[in-house]
């Protein structure tokens, strides 16, 4: 069963006195139920636009969309009860407490007050629930937004860059929460992110978005395999001597400021041995992960 289906979606934002901004360019997207599905793309690639379209906040210029099998936006009134969402920043009334903000939403849909408390507990906000929303830190605001999205016990949970503004501890908690929800057997989490590492950590499947189109989709391990650069970062007590040795052995070496970048370092063991045999003991040798830009460059090049 698929929870999200988008076929051939186009969207251009009209702007005064300027050409329209093309946000989506024939997007196709299929998200199967269960697990955590990453929606990965750099800033401005159209992630938020896609989510807004699915939720009926902006209208598509063309294309077909389905949520939980129902065509949207037409059937949105029927499916919305099973879809929880946090889009960009959480939208709450600043002078109401976190608890009151959630209760007002709960009343709208007939969700019980005990469920409100459960969700506050789930995001660890019970202790601060009576403080005004505007007094919350960015991370607390974000967590309240997640709590609001969870109120309905949704079958589909849509989170648009939920770790924005969170500190490292907060990011870790949110990621654990997402994984727990994604594997509870009934919730599918659709997680948009511009961070490759986040998707690698928490997602089972991923769809990669570039300039308003989906350029790759599938299990994370398959899609992102071979996307590491194969380069390593290397530091040695005598950098000049190390560079000389490596170049003599046929490696390409470039500067990273306080370290060297060794290109296409297929066997890190070989490098370590080579330098050690010549009296150079490494202080650092680490693989350089592919940054998102290079993954996109790679993927979009394949497309054309």
């Amino acid at each position: 069963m698929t929870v999200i289906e988008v076929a051939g979606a186009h969207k251009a934002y009209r702007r005064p006195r300027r050409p329209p901004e093309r946000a989506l360019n024939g997007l196709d997207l299929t998200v199967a139920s269960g697990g955590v599905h990453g929606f990965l793309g750099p800033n401005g690639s159209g992630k938020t636009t896609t989510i807004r379209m699915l939720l009926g906040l902006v209208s598509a210029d063309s294309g077909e969309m389905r949520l939980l099998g129902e065509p949207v936006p037409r059937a949105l009134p029927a499916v919305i009860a099973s879809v929880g969402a946090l889009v960009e920043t959480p939208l709450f009334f600043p002078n109401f407490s976190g608890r009151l903000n959630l209760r007002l939403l709960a009343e709208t849909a007939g969700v019980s007050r005990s469920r409100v408390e459960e969700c506050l507990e789930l995001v660890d906000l019970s202790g601060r629930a009576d403080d005004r929303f505007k007094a919350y830190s960015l991370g607390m605001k974000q967590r309240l937004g997640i709590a609001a999205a969870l109120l309905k016990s949704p079958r589909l949970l849509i989170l648009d860059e939920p770790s924005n503004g969170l500190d490292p501890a907060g990011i870790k908690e949110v990621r654990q929460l997402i994984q727990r929800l994604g594997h509870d057997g009934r919730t599918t989490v659709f997680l948009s992110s511009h961070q490759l590492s986040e998707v690698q950590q928490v997602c089972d499947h991923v769809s990669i978005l570039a300039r308003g189109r989906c350029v790759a989709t599938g299990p994370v391990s398959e899609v992102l395999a071979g996307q590491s650069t194969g380069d390593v970062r290397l530091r040695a007590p005598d950098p000049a001597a190390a560079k000389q040795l490596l170049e003599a052995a046929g490696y390409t070496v470039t500067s990273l400021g306080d370290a060297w970048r060794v290109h296409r370092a297929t066997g890190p063991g070989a490098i370590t041995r080579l330098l050690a045999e010549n009296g150079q003991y490494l202080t650092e040798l680490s693989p350089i992960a592919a940054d998102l830009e290079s993954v996109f460059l790679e993927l979009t090049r394949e497309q054309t």
Partner: protein
Amino acid sequence: MSGAIATGATTDPHAADLGRGSLLLAEVHRITARRFIRWLLAVSLVTYLVIVSIVGLTQFAKPSAAGLAHARHRVQAAVANQKAARDQCLKDPNRPTDQPAEQICGPDPAAGMFRVQDFVDPPAFDLQRDLPATAIAVGVATAALAFLIGATYVGAEWSSRSMVALLFWEPRRLRVMSVKLGVLAAAAALLGVLGQLIWLATAEILQSTRGAPTHLPAHFWSDLVAQEGRTILFVVLMGLLGFGIANLIRNTGASMGVGFVYFAIVENAVRVARPRWQEWLLTDNIAGLLSKGGYRLPVDSAAVSPGGGVVPGQPHEIFISNLHGGLVLGGVTAAIVAAGVASFVRRDLH
């Protein structure tokens, strides 16, 4: 108008216990929880009590028996005076004969022509005169309050963007807007009724503590009820107007600015430059709606520009009936509210 949206989840045994949700209930909860609205109401009530106490204590006094006797005496003197003057006028041989005597010399003064209350000194509170006039003033104040509440109610929803968040729960935008409008209209009506009731109670207290004995004319209460009905309609319309403007421009402060510019600048400019257009100004139509039997507006013909259509030198009058006032006010409000709702229903939201 219950916004139950539990349809999609009914087949899912794990779904949250989605009962019958109520957008209406949540909206009522939302408007009553707003601090600024509570604060506005509290400040208005305190201001009202202060003004009523000061005016009541300093401007009115209950006349003593001696004071009443003196006032009755003055009434008799006034009647006698008037009678003497009239007799003299009737006897005057030079009186023009082409017009009836009543028109030239005035009616035959009876005792009912002068009211004792008007002759007591210091003045007493006069239910017949002060109750309806001040009821209109209270209505205008509550209408301004309703405008402010309407504007801040929806303006803050836009600035906090919780208007958009609500659509994650009820995507039918027209329904969301209708419920908000309905709640605001009901709140404004309640405010209008409460304002009038509070004034009525105050007037009764003033009458019994600082009033002179009075005989109310036959239609006094029915006229008053009709006037209060129009006043409450006016309060509701102003609440909706505030809501409509703030919803259209999506900002509370800016809608106050629009209101200020209109009432302080546009209307005055029109009065000077195009006196005949006053028929369509909100203030004049408010006067038309509220005044008993409508509102007659003298147009200073000297100020009419050549294209204005009034022959210079001829006095001119614009008459605005209750119905005319209500229709203009209602029409303007409906147009602004409809424009805001249409834009909300159709536009992309971010």
